[in-house]
């Protein structure tokens, strides 16, 4: 059994990973951040570890891979954890040099100034002591005295490390692997090894605060993952490996979190998407009353649970931000007016809702707050947005999310981005401080070239005339789309059926496929020939999910071709403003239409079909006639 780092991407082929020098040191250093987004396979840990140990001139890459001397002290087999510590260290920006003290010699090594440990001069010392070493395997006659003695020994060892090296001390808690002798009422036998392990873990927590050291809570981890994921009794008996090799990567990740936290490198700001992340549905289309949130439904409760977790993080000093493709006013209205919203505008330090790409907006958020991009965690249900951010801004931490919104908060918690060691008054006041910063900072636009990312998506736009099979979905789309909708004209079932039957009507449906899969029907265009030989577009609507990907331009190519086939010489477009569709005010001019009059806020546009069409970059277009005429 293996513990899963399920907030990371998995891949059999992690880009750039080799164990030999076909990957130059400089390229390795450059790619380390991309690498950080992947869970490593078992042999990939060894591959990366071997490659890292071949770096010829570590000092040269210290800016990306900061050298770190880590001593691991224990009383059983720990060699098997070192490759994972070094490999995971690189993912977190460290080039770790490990020192493993000889089996059970740690007290002597700490005390003896001539020891190899002293020569190594560790910056971090990890006490990875096994349960047998700490509490024994027999019933103790005097459990309290035994625990007192163990704690005295540990405190002395920690103090020795702090005094001798000024190193950060990380103490592993006791893995709860001792078998119960009583059962649920194990406390009735205070000297049982299982009971002593639990008691020692409680004492470690008190002592850690008093002595200023940090814990590696593998007892909590084993509760989450199940003991079998962490410990294999066969390997303990055979080779004294308490932590199963299969858990090494998870162990290393947990061990390095306090190291990051001590160095101020934990994330500081949680950036949240809105639609289908903080609530179910699309606020721009479904409206304030249509989104799913809050008591009364399991789904609504699920979204609320992420809001609650975010709010609790904020209360202990994590900043919150919003990054959403939405109309600013529509998005804010949810926070101001929806009765079930736990998060309110004054909890959000930086609120960015617009139609620009998310990497640009994340830069804006970081600038506004005055923190680095590497301090951001970006949570979004949409894999397109997640991968765009990962490729454009690899320093931003982007968790993979499970399908079910009920599990979002748990995944975020397990990822440990916000690892912290103590809660200070400053933590609690930080939110106010940064809010002031954000208010002062002027937002500024920044350009981002996402062309190469879009190319990598292999987008295919498939189109066909309306057909009976698609009728239900078409009726649904034309009657619920509010944002990317030029005229917001609604249609009955019968009207759509009439369009299906009319060979002279332009009635087109578009689907988009990409590397993430099939996005379904994402655009509808409806038009009629006028007596003057122009094609009047009475409806053009799109799903906001595919915005900013050049899909409109590709659609225009199809519309123009079909219009010509019907004998038209020009396209006529109309924009009828509503409260919801401000985002498409410039839709037609952006596509090269020229102004053709206006009244009562409505604007009209014209595109002569003898003119060249704008290029639809990165999208191939596929005509699937299917059952259409």
């Amino acid at each position, binding site marked *: 059994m293996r513990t899963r780092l399920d907030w990371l991407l998995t891949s*059999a082929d992690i880009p750039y990973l080799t*164990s*030999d020098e076909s990957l130059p040191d400089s390229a390795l250093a450059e790619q380390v951040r991309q690498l950080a987004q992947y869970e490593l*396979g*078992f*042999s990939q840990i*060894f*591959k990366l570890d*071997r490659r890292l140990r071949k770096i010829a001139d570590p000092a040269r890459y210290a800016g990306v891979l900061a050298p770190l001397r880590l001593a691991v002290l224990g009383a059983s*087999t720990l*060699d*098997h954890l070192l490759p994972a510590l070094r490999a995971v260290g690189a993912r977190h920006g460290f080039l770790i040099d490990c020192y493993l003290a000889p089996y059970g010699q740690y007290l002597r090594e700490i005390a003896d100034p001539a020891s190899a440990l002293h020569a190594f001069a560790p910056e971090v010392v990890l006490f990875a002591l096994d349960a047998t070493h700490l509490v024994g395997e027999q019933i103790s006659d005097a459990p309290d005295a035994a625990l007192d003695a163990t704690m005295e020994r540990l405190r002395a060892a920690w103090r020795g490390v702090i005094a001798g090296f000024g190193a950060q001390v990380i103490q592993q808690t006791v893995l709860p692997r001792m078998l119960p002798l009583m059962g649920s009422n194990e406390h009735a036998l205070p000297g049982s090894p299982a009971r002593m392990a639990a008691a020692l873990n409680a004492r470690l927590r008190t002592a850690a605060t008093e002595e200023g050291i940090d814990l590696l809570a593998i007892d909590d981890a084993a509760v989450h993952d199940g003991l079998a994921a962490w410990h294999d009794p*066969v*390997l303990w008996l*055979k*080779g004294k*490996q308490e932590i199963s*090799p*299969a858990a090494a990567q998870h162990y290393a990740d947990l061990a390095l979190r306090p190291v990051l936290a001590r160095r101020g490198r934990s994330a500081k700001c949680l950036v949240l998407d809105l639609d289908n992340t903080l609530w179910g549905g699309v606020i721009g289309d479904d409206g304030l009353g249509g989104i799913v949130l809050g008591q009364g439904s399991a789904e609504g409760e699920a979204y609320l649970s992420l809001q609650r977790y975010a709010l609790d993080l904020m209360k202990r000093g994590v900043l919150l931000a919003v990054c959403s493709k939405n109309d600013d006013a529509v998005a804010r209205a949810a926070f101001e007016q929806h009765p079930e919203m736990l998060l309110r505008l004054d909890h959000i330090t930086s609120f960015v809702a617009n139609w620009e790409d998310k990497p640009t907006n994340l830069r804006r958020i970081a600038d506004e707050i005055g923190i680095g991009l590497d301090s951001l965690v970006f949570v979004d249900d949409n894999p397109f947005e997640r991968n765009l951010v990962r490729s454009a801004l690899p320093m931003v931490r982007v968790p993979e999310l499970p399908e079910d919104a009920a599990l979002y908060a748990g995944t975020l918690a397990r990822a440990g981005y916000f690892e912290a060691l103590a809660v200070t008054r400053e933590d609690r006041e930080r939110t106010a401080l940064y809010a002031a910063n954000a208010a002062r900072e002027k937002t500024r636009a920044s350009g981002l070239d996402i062309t190469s990312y879009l190319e990598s998506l292999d987008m295919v736009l498939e189109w066909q005339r309306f057909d009976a099979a698609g009728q239900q979905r078409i009726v649904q789309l034309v009657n619920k789309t509010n944002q990317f909708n030029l005229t917001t004209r609604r249609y009955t079932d019968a009207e759509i059926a009439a369009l299906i039957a009319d060979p002279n009507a332009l009635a087109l449906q578009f689907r988009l496929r990409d590397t993430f899969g099939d996005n379904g029907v994402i655009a509808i265009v409806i038009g009629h020939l006028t007596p003057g030989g122009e094609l009047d577009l009475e409806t053009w609507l799109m799903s906001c999910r595919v915005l900013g990907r050049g899909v409109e331009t590709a659609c225009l190519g199809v519309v123009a071709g079909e219009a010509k086939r019907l004998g038209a010489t020009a396209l006529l477009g109309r924009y009828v403003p509503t409260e919801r569709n401000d985002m498409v005010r410039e839709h037609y001019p952006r596509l090269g239409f020229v102004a053709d009059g206006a009244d009562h806020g409505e604007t009209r546009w014209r595109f002569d079909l003898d003119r060249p069409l704008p290029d639809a970059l990165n999208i191939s277009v596929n005509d699937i006639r299917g059952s259409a005429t």
Partner: protein
Amino acid sequence: MQHDEIVEELTGIFRDIFDDDDLVLRDDMTAADVARWTSLSHINLILAVEDAFDIKIGSGDIEKLTNVRALLTLIERKAAR
């Protein structure tokens, strides 16, 4: 997966797990021929093979897989399913 591909993949695993860039796999190779192939690193080898070929190796088989031929035979049998 073809025999040659399996050998290539397994060679990479042996090189990574036993930390030897020049290691060349031979059918008759046993733990005695590879300096770092110990009873402890054997567990790493098995886990790496399970992970890379997406197979599960039963605990009864683990002890018997101390030569390359036995490993290859088992991988070919399990990966073919």
